[in-house]
């Protein structure tokens, strides 16, 4: 058996608020294999966001260890973490987080800028990614000229452009209507089928049903780790909807 992509052991994150220590994460040990599709669920304050921040190398654990592709990233700091984020992780946010007054193409190029890729190469790769999310024709558009669904597609293209091993999506459909949400989930499932590891944080069961595995958090602990033998297929649902409308 090969090493898992992600392995955490007794991951603990303690925040100090005033005189009190808040255990946002109270010892989480999880293995996630390459190519998995995972939904992370739980109410607010359950620790799911903290967990995702640690997996995304945005934060460092108070104790415990985190191995990403065999590398002990819990020991990294600062610029090394930044490089890990740049190379290995693609982020998708609820509110898209595109730079305003910056074209879709330039938004997608941004991670490559920080990776030190030459301008010409950068442009070609960004265009390729935009084509992959179906927005090749909108490369020159500014975010405010795009619909919510299109903006999230640009954000996904940006997350994919450095060819990361995993995609971390934090409530990716939270700001979208149900049909657009389905389209985004269909895109995620398609990408997952192509091999990328997908982690989606959500509090909606509706979104979680597309994942093949569901982690439930409460009070900083994993309370359930369930496999979903028959995840819903977003593309199929879209086709059914289209047929019903016709």
């Amino acid at each position, binding site marked *: 058996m090969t090493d898992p992509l992600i392995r955490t052991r007794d991951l603990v994150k303690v925040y100090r608020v005033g005189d009190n220590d808040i255990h946002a994460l109270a010892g989480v040990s999880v293995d996630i294999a390459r190519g998995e599709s995972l939904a992370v669920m739980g109410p607010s304050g359950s620790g799911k966001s903290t967990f995702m921040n640690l997996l995304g190398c945005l*934060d460092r654990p108070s104790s415990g260890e985190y191995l990403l592709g065999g590398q002990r990233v819990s020991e990294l700091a600062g610029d090394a973490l930044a490089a890990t984020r740049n190379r290995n992780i693609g982020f998708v946010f609820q509110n898209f987080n595109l730079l305003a007054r910056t074209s879709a193409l330039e938004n997608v190029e941004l991670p490559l*800028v920080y990776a030190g890729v030459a301008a010409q190469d950068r442009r070609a790769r960004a265009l390729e990614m935009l084509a992959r999310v179906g927005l090749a024709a909108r490369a020159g558009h500014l975010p405010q000229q795009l619909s919510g669904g299109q903006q999230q597609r640009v954000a996904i293209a940006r997350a994919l452009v450095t060819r990361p091993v995993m995609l971390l999506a934090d409530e990716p459909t939270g700001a979208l209507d149900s049909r657009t949400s389905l389209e985004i989930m269909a895109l995620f499932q398609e990408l997952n089928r192509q091999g990328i590891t997908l982690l989606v944080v959500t509090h909606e069961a509706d979104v979680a049903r597309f994942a093949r595995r569901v982690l439930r958090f409460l009070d900083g602990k994993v309370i359930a780790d369930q496999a979903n033998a028959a995840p819903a297929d977003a593309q199929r649902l879209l086709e059914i909807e289209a047929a019903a409308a016709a």
Partner: protein
Amino acid sequence: MSLGALLKVALRALAVNKLRSALTMLGIIIGVAAVIVMVAVGAGAQARVEEQIRALGSNLLLILSGARTQSGVRLGVGSNYTLSEDDAIAISREIPDALAAPALRGGAQVIWGNANWATQIYGTTPEYLDVRQWPLAAGRSFEPLEMTGAGKVCLVGQTVVRQLFGNTDPVGQLIRIKRVPFTVVGVLENKGQSMMGTDQDDIVVLPIATARSRVLGTANLAKQRAVSTIWVKVADGADTKVVEEQVRQLLRQRHRLQAGAEDDFSLRNLAEVMAAQEASSRVLALLLAAVASVSLVVGGIGIMNIMLVSVTERTREIGLRMALGARTRDILGQFLVEAVTLSLIGGLAGVALGAGAALGIAQIAGWRIALSPVAVVLAVAFAFAIGVFFGYYPARKAARLNPVEALRFE
């Protein structure tokens, strides 16, 4: 991130708040413009002083007769004629690097036809014109025979020409000074104002013997061949200080002064006086520049203020950039370049404004200005340094943000 990419990001960010960026730059613009104007005015004043030094003739020593003590009352410099024509001759003869001209000074009414004018009468030798580097505009200087024989000839300055003769050529005309008729043999060039503001062209120059016996003198003075002042020109390349000391020793020896006795004359080094004036005008120029740079620093504080606001406003953007892989130095560079762009554009605009204002002052107020390229380069470099200095703290603040908190920032 490359510098070009950083610059592009900075310009775009500054373009978002055009008015705010412009107002922030205004501080630097005014600061740089003030420095450039002040340095131009200060340098102009300094150039004027230097020109006056050249007009006076550099390397000049002025020897004045000493003080007389009468019944215990000490009178001022020049109250006693302790200097004589022979002292001047001795200086010229004994000290190779010195050329001396004795002078007797006084005032008198000068009459030509029905015009008259009160002016300064200067009894001296032809060497005086060499010493003062004062060429003739017309006519000739005194002849040796006129010097020894107390010839009734004179040279006139430009002011006297204007007041007395109007449009008539003065050379060959007869003028009367204290009822004595003098023939004008030469006209002096325009010399302009002295450092103290007196009109140096308001003068009639006579042979010293004539001046002593006919116009200014008394029998007593005539006997001693006394003079009130001796002008000494130090040869080019010679050390004024050394010649000054040689002159002092020679005069002390000639006047038979004891080792401990005070000088019975007063020796002034005009080059030194001028150097002191020049130094003071340089200090003034420095002071002006220093005051102006205070406004540059104030402009820098404005930049820091606006950059802090900008960092706070764009916390989410910073968080996002970090999530996408921006390193500490990327964020630091981004905000530093933004601050420096503000200050540099402001600096260049300030140079344009400052140069324009300086030229305007020269036109309107008629002041002498000197735009110095060094000051321009320094002011822009200073603006750049201010951008770095005052931009660093906000940029560091941005670079040190925690990405998780930055992304969550509302």
